[in-house]
């Protein structure tokens, strides 16, 4: 019996040591994905992009030879679920960085990750996440460990409004154009609501009472009738693609047709195909080229895509590329952190804040040059406005304008 015990302890000790040895050159990363729930329409391609990119990094030498050990959890877009997952991770996986998703959960986690010093790369581009110090007067809470790839929702909406003002003039519109914000009563569509409305007023728009429509796709004729009665000229859609498809179809039915402008998650190839002619002319900000574009970095993206689709035949939509970009910015920061000493949360944050007009190697033309500083986490403020046309199934993205929204100090964190 005693011998058995001894053997057991020895085996356990060896096992324990071997797992420790493996753990030493692995980088634990949390991946909070939305594969089910109201935003899964865009959560799946983005999550696939994140996972494929991490697998690609692991298959190609890792981060300075260290492998990313990531755990994917589908939290179904429920903020409390996300917090519970985070707490679970902090007592087990202990990630040094997290690839996250929605606005509600990311904003709820801001204080937690700041306390635990875990850099958080969200797919939420909420303007509330851009002020690391909390000095800006409109900031509710400082978000020192939050990063995201792309222009914030507020800046994107400002860019769209800027474009709309020019468009109104170009079309010879008379009087003040009417702007309306549409979206669910949820932190994500609400994030740019006030910031964008204020800028629209500044540009001479008449800002109408916002309209609420559900994040879950469903009939929205009542909202479209309100929209029609309001006489809006430019309507911003704050929800994700699936919900916007049903909105546009409903509005087509009741004959409400202002110039629709979508959030960066609000319009993609799937929605163009699903909404067909109802969606023609929707203005959309692109955070990356589309799958068939021939930007130099697309070669890397296609290699990344082969991680889960060896045939290489699968079409990846816009969100996939942005997911990959988010991972590669994180990877580059980890490499800098590693050279400086160790891959820890605070080192990754410091490394992120040294990036100036940075584009991850191999992704030129895919990821926009981004700059983060210790005072300003607005990676980019460039908004590329396109309109889309269904074109009988051979859909097209038509470039309209590239608006660089000014980095006003009082817009930080808002």
């Amino acid at each position, binding site marked *: 019996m005693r011998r058995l015990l001894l053997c057991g302890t020895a085996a356990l000790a060896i096992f324990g040591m071997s797992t420790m040895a493996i753990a030493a050159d692995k980088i634990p990363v949390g991946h909070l994905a939305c*594969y*089910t729930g109201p935003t899964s329409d865009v959560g799946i391609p983005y999550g696939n992009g994140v996972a494929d990119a991490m697998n690609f990094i692991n298959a190609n030498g890792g981060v300075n030879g260290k492998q990313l050990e990531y755990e*994917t959890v*589908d939290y*179904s877009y*429920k*903020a*409390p679920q996300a*917090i*519970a997952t985070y*707490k*679970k991770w902090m*007592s*087990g996986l202990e990630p040094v960085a997290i690839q996250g998703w929605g606005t*509600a959960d990311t*904003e*709820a986690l801001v*204080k*937690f990750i700041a306390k635990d010093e875990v850099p958080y790369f969200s797919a939420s581009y909420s303007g509330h996440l851009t002020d690391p110090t909390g000095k800006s007067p409109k900031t509710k809470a400082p978000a020192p460990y939050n990063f995201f790839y792309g222009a914030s929702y507020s800046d994107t909406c400002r860019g769209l409004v800027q474009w709309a003002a020019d468009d109104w003039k170009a079309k010879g519109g008379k009087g003040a154009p009417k702007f309306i914000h549409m979206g669910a*009563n*949820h*932190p994500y569509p*609400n994030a740019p609501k006030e910031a964008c409305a204020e800028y629209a007023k500044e540009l001479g728009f008449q800002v109408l009472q916002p309209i609420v429509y559900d994040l879950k796709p469903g009939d929205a004729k009542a909202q479209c009738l309100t929209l029609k009665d309001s006489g809006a000229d430019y309507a911003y859609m704050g929800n994700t693609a699936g919900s916007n498809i049903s909105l546009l179809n409903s509005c087509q039915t009741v004959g409400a047709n202002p110039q629709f402008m979508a959030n960066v998650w609000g319009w993609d190839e799937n929605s163009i195909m699903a909404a067909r002619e109802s969606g023609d002319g929707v203005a959309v900000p692109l955070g990356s080229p589309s799958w068939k574009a021939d930007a130099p970095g697309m070669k890397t993206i296609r290699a990344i895509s082969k991680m*889960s689709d060896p045939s290489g035949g699968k079409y990846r939509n816009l969100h996939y590329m942005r997911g990959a970009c988010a991972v590669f910015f994180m990877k580059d920061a980890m490499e800098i952190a590693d050279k400086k000493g160790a891959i820890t949360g605070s080192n990754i944050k410091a490394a992120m804040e040294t990036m100036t007009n940075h584009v991850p190697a191999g992704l030129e033309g895919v990821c926009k040059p981004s700059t983060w500083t210790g005072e300003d986490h607005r990676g980019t403020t460039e908004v590329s406005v396109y309109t889309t046309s269904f074109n009988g199934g051979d859909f097209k993205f038509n470039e309209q304008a590239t608006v660089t929204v000014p980095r006003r100090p009082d817009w930080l964190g808002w």
Partner: protein
Amino acid sequence: MASAHSRMRCGEFRTTYQADMTIFPTPLARRTAVGSVLLLLAAPAVLDSYLLNLLIQIGYYGIAALGLNIVVGFTGQISLGHAAFFGFGAFASAWLNGTTGIPVFFTIPLAGAMTMAVGLIVGIPAGRIKGLYLAIATLASQYILEDFFARAEWFTGGSAGAMANPFTLFGYEFFTDQTYFYVVLFYVVVMYLGGANLMRTRDGRAFVAVRDHYLSAEIMGINLTKYRILSFGISSFYAGVGGALFGHYLGFVSAEGFTLLLSIQFIGMVIIGGLGSVMGAMMGTVFMVLLPEVMEFGVHLVGSNNTALTQALAYIKEMAIGLAIILFLIFEPDGLAHRWRMIKNYWKLYPFSY
């Protein structure tokens, strides 16, 4: 072994009213209860955070489930709005603490009282309607409260949710799982003793009388309206305290967490555990909390590299809960508490079970 047997009785012999009214049916049951609480006191030293997290979940859901069992199992009413009360407690405690600065130590029972007030109002229809109609009325209260949570920015922070400060006592923060566990354990013991005692009182017996035959109860002089509404009030108090514990544990309260689905899960807990049983509420909660974890463990065991399976995990968890409720309704409608009693009886009478 022999000593244990001598303590176990082969039947329930109660010769005095006092003996008939004890909280614990047998001395062994009492010792087991005290012993398990003592054992649980040592849990944070032994268990890792993951297991403690599950125990904490069982704790706050268990308190709320007992509340639902008081209204459904003991008083024979139905409530489809329990999650909304649970949420109201969470928001109330976070709000009280956040705006007035009253320590969390006091806001948890205060949140319970506030929720009780809401429950008494929502319970008013119960004084007049029953059955399916009451179910729909409580369903309405679920939606009214949910909408209130999403819009009342002053109270809940609106759709963005509210931050809840950690539980503190004399400047010491109960932030980690290891420490918060004791807070939850304290409340579980207090609330369950309270629940068990409630059923020994005049009011508790009135609840049971209303459930068993409301006409006879009324003829015996029980005020039906009063007790039906009171039952909703007490049930909401439990939900409020459970919700407040949940809110301060998570540190963040959001309207999304308190949907109809959670109400159904509470119903599932009391059905699986056993309607009209204090211990059943706890058993059902343990079952409901552990079931998804067991599913997850199973999925990882079968194939952690199988992406299709891990992506389907969210569905598998939800389906398992549905399946469990159906199977219990068919095969064990009296719940786990009943099954436990049968097992005990089997061993008590072994080997002469006839």
